[in-house]
């Protein structure tokens, strides 16, 4: 089904809360004002583009046994300027219903919230080991 007009936009309470938490925790300080402004502008631009092309972002696999009926679960990904690396990896889970042409922004998070980062020592050891192997 193709639509000539932008999709309808809906926002859950959880999205509002998680977005606000990210902004407060990571960009709340006055010295981050410029980064915060850039981030806000980018998020609005990305959502505006999303409403014109709800399929633009990749589908997200579902937890086992979950049924979405007519909905699709997709994920927006982009970097927040100025933040630490894993905090910078910003994501929004959104649902799209092609039948009603509705986009629902459901939850915001950063990669740091769900990371599985090896320790610095493990990363360094793996890097050194691989470099040695390649030079021998």
């Amino acid at each position, binding site marked *: 089904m193709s639509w000539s007009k932008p999709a309808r936009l809906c926002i859950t309470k959880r999205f509002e809360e998680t977005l606000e938490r990210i*902004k407060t925790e990571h960009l709340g300080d006055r010295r981050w004002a410029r980064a915060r402004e850039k981030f806000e502008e980018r998020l609005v631009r990305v959502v505006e583009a999303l409403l014109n092309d709800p399929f633009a972002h990749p589908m997200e696999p579902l937890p086992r046994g979950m049924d979405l009926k007519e909905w699709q679960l997709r994920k927006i*990904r982009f970097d927040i300027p100025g933040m630490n690396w894993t905090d910078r990896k910003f994501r929004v889970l959104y649902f799209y219903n092609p039948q009603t042409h509705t986009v629902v922004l459901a939850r915001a998070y950063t990669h740091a919230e769900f990371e599985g980062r090896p320790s610095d020592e493990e990363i360094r050891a793996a890097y050194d080991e691989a470099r040695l192997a390649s030079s021998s």
Partner: protein
Amino acid sequence: MGASVANLEELTSVRTVELLKHHTPQVSELLEQARNLQRLARQVETGWGQIPAEAKIILKDFGYSLNQSYLRPNPWQMPRVISFLIKAVIKGEIPALLKFGNALLEAQEAILCQVERENSSYQAAVADAIDDVVGGRDPGREMSLEEFRELVKTGKALHH
């Protein structure tokens, strides 16, 4: 899964980093590595479940190592890096560099997304979001793009 563990080591930890840090890469090397990284991203996205545990560790190290300070050029290496960039501009090689950089980010994002999905808290967060929207617990309230812009800038709608 097409890549063996040894291939992954070649593809990730060393090859990509050394390519940029320890010598001046040729355009053909950058383009070849960009293709390898794009292939890796596709394998990670579509076949993560079939990747051996040992290979997953290598991939995670790679995904997270790109932010490590010891992988960045040292100050005394910067003149060489700048010289390389200037030559790349003059010789019209910037598209190859960009292609390589984008492929690197694409592979990294694919890995980090799989790391998230392995986290039980993430699975719970997704299940909550599905309960909200599909289950009807919080289907969301409609707003215009202008209202959304206002919400993003001020958080005002939270306090309605």
